[in-house]
């Protein structure tokens, strides 16, 4: 299966020469195999996925949660406006409102001119929780993870290959940080021995101390999570908008000096073929 990263910036799109290398678009990735296309999150990175998606009859969009940096691009995903396309949107169930009604809060006036119910594609929405489901050749596990509001991570399995996607996750929330016992680690089941783990690493250790509870991880905690889950390779993602390319590389170098976990920085435009 082929993974492509279309947006790895956290919080808000960030353009400019300082963020050119790792990219300024917010969360979006695709996973493709055969005639199946999964789009993970609908941040601003989803807009150029429209071109790639034109050759697929059915497209499945898997949203981790509905914060703006994960849905802002949805209205600019042109297959939504193509009556020949079948689009399924999967997202975390909430105890109070359906996924449809929550996404409609954004895709409706005054925030957006077109109502979700009026998009011309064949649209189906699916509320997911701690569950398994199948899409084409993919077996998918979704599970709630620690982040403000209903948020899930996804474990995407094709045969023995596993890609785990959790761009927003704060497993270290607590007075003493992450509990070093797999049974007590949020998201452990989703990430265990993943071939590729894409994980939140928005902050430095120092930044995390003053932003505890905001739903994100320090690069240190992301590395610890990767170690506990025995992920084979981890991509640090959800880069803070204030972090330049140079700063991200310094963060990574500092992390690598104290860890043997296989890691790298998620980079917009990069592709990984899992075989």
């Amino acid at each position, binding site marked *: 299966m082929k993974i492509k990263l279309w947006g790895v910036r956290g919080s808000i799109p960030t353009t400019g020469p300082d963020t050119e290398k790792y990219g300024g678009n917010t969360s979006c990735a695709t996973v493709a195999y055969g005639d199946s296309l999964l789009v993970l999150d609908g941040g601003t990175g989803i807009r150029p996925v429209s071109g790639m998606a034109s050759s697929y009859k059915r497209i499945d969009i898997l949203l981790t949660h509905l914060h703006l940096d994960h849905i802002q691009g949805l209205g600019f995903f042109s297959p939504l406006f193509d009556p020949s396309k079948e689009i399924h949107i999967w997202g975390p*169930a*909430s*105890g109070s409102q359906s996924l449809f009604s929550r996404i409609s809060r954004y895709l409706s006036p005054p925030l957006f001119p077109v109502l979700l119910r009026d998009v011309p594609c064949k649209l189906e929405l699916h509320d997911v*929780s*701690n569950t398994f489901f199948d899409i084409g050749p993919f077996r998918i596990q979704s599970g*709630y*993870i*620690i982040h403000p509001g*209903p948020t899930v991570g996804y474990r995407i399995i094709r045969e023995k290959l596993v890609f785990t996607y959790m761009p927003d996750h704060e497993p270290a*929330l*607590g*007075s*003493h940080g992450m*509990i070093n016992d*797999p*049974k*007590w*680690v*949020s*998201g*452990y*089941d989703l990430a*265990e021995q993943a071939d590729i783990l894409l994980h939140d690493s928005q902050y430095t250790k120092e930044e995390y101390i003053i932003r505890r509870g905001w739903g994100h991880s320090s690069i240190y905690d992301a590395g610890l999570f990767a170690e506990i889950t025995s992920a084979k390779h981890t991509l640090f993602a959800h880069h803070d908008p204030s972090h330049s390319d140079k700063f991200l590389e310094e963060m990574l170098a500092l992390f690598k000096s104290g860890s043997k976990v296989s890691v790298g920085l998620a980079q917009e435009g990069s592709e990984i073929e899992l075989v």
Partner: protein
Amino acid sequence: MAAYEIEIILNRQLADCLSIPVFITDTAGNLIFYNEAAEPVLGKRFEDTGEMPVEEWSTIFKPFDNNGNPMAPEELPLVKTLTEQYPYHKSFQIVSLKGEKQPISVTSYPIISRSEEFVGAVAIFWKQKLK
């Protein structure tokens, strides 16, 4: 290995910050965590015992009502919460590890997850204030 639901994990993280004794069980009543403040009540350290089956930890407490009569297990708030998935609160006495009767109040509540599943229960032990 399956991890606990995040609602259980977050309850443990909260308990870990509190100075009042907190016990967390799974749906069967097995003790899966107790905080540092609960350790003197049990006379054990979580680091030493780890999780404890319901048969083991339920025998540690000897509860009496305020008239000094032994209480049946089904009268205890946590047992009622586990049975009915509903919160309870009751004041009674337990025999301390030193053999002294100690008045306490217990608040218990079920942990109902975002998926609306009953995933565990919490019991908080409050020392009764002397009047």
